[in-house]
């Protein structure tokens, strides 16, 4: 019997290695796998490359992971912003590398990793400062730049409902980076708000099929905060 549920966050995080590339989903704290991020801090892996939409806000989650000196490099679309206080400190000390990407390029590079596409051309960023050092090429008289795939060793995912095959359904804007990151990592770890029996999730509605999922832990995290950090 396929059963991807594990009993604890500690079990879910087992085996993550120093130097791993970790994709962390979530947008504005919605669909963010906070319990797994805390679990990663607890687990102890260092020298991580973290791929997340921001460089962390406030003092929890990705910000805390950075603050504890565990992130060698952050790949994100929002670095400096109101609330990115911990990143600012660490970055000012020169203790973290930064790769800044347009948000859609970030999403598409992860999608390319999931789909076996090592590189693709995009108009986003062409002719701008972000194109520096990137290969440019014309197609039909428009300039595009070459972007490469991003693949994770680990993806941390928050789902609304999950079954024992690892099939996932998300909730409203909690979907965001979750499906694409879940599909782009070697080891995909999920925290789910609810557990569904096999066959209970609609086959038409499953947003991430279990094939992409390795471990699921049941965490009743509750709603994201209404006051957004």
């Amino acid at each position, binding site marked *: 019997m396929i059963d991807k549920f594990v009993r604890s966050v500690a079990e879910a995080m087992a085996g993550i290695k120093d130097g791993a590339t970790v994709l962390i989903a979530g*947008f504005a704290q919605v669909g963010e796998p906070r319990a797994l991020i805390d679990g990663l801090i607890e687990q102890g892996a260092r020298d991580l490359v973290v791929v997340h939409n921001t460089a962390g806000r406030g003092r929890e989650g990705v910000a805390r992971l950075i603050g504890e000196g565990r992130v060698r490099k952050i790949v994100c679309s929002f670095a400096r912003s109101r609330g990115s206080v911990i990143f600012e400190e660490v970055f000012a000390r020169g203790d973290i590398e930064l790769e800044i990407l347009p948000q*859609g*390029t970030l999403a598409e590079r992860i999608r390319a990793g999931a789909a076996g596409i090592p590189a693709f051309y995009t108009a986003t960023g062409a*002719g*701008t*400062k972000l194109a520096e050092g990137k290969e440019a090429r014309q197609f039909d008289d428009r300039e595009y730049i070459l972007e490469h795939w991003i693949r994770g060793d680990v993806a941390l995912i928050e789902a609304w409902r999950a079954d024992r095959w690892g099939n996932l359904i998300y909730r*409203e*804007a909690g979907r965001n980076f979750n499906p694409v990151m879940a599909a782009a990592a070697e080891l995909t770890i999920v925290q789910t708000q609810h557990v569904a029996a096999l066959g209970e999730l609609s086959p038409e509605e499953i947003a991430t099929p279990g094939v992409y999922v390795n471990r699921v832990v049941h965490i009743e995290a509750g709603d994201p905060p209404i006051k*957004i950090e």
Partner: protein
Amino acid sequence: MSESANWKPLGREELAARVARDIPEGWSVNLGIGIPTLVGNYVPKEREVVFHSENGILGMGPAPPAGHENAWLVNASRQHVSLLPGGSFMSHSDSFALVRGGHLDLCVLGAFQVAENGDLANWARSENDNAPAIGGAMDLAAGAKRIWIVMEHTTRAGEPRLLRRCSYPLTAGGCVKRVYTELAVIDVTADGFRVIDMVPGLTLAALQDRTEAPLLG
């Protein structure tokens, strides 16, 4: 500015309403942070416009009243929103495929500078910002069918923002189709900026005084 006695600049809300007037029914529209976000409030409910948010929402409705927020429903500006009947959710990758594939009829953005060839600068005020927050602006600027800009006509110091060439780092080249300021509505054409509307009492000469690039009447 002494001649301002003759005319009155639009306020933030009036400016948002002015933009909203030009959005036809049925368009798919993304609204950037700031004044652009206010535009949605001025599209009459019976004129159906499909509002998109980069984090995977189509068919966004107005902000819910305080105390009635849905914690799971935030837009790309991290504000709580609602979903209209007919709305739907998608992943970030599907959402940006929609943006980058040219499926938005319109994106309304703020800007620091716009050049007469349509170049847009709205993400950095200096070449030296080594840790910027870009978000979806470059994807939207390069991907949407039309970019309309809402911004103040000049900087607080009175420096023009409608330029021959942008001095700040570009978001995307040649993407801006129209600029709305507190003073005028200006199209970007093959011949440069063309004024299509001004606040009552304002003269083209007075507007030109506040604009670096030449204005066509």
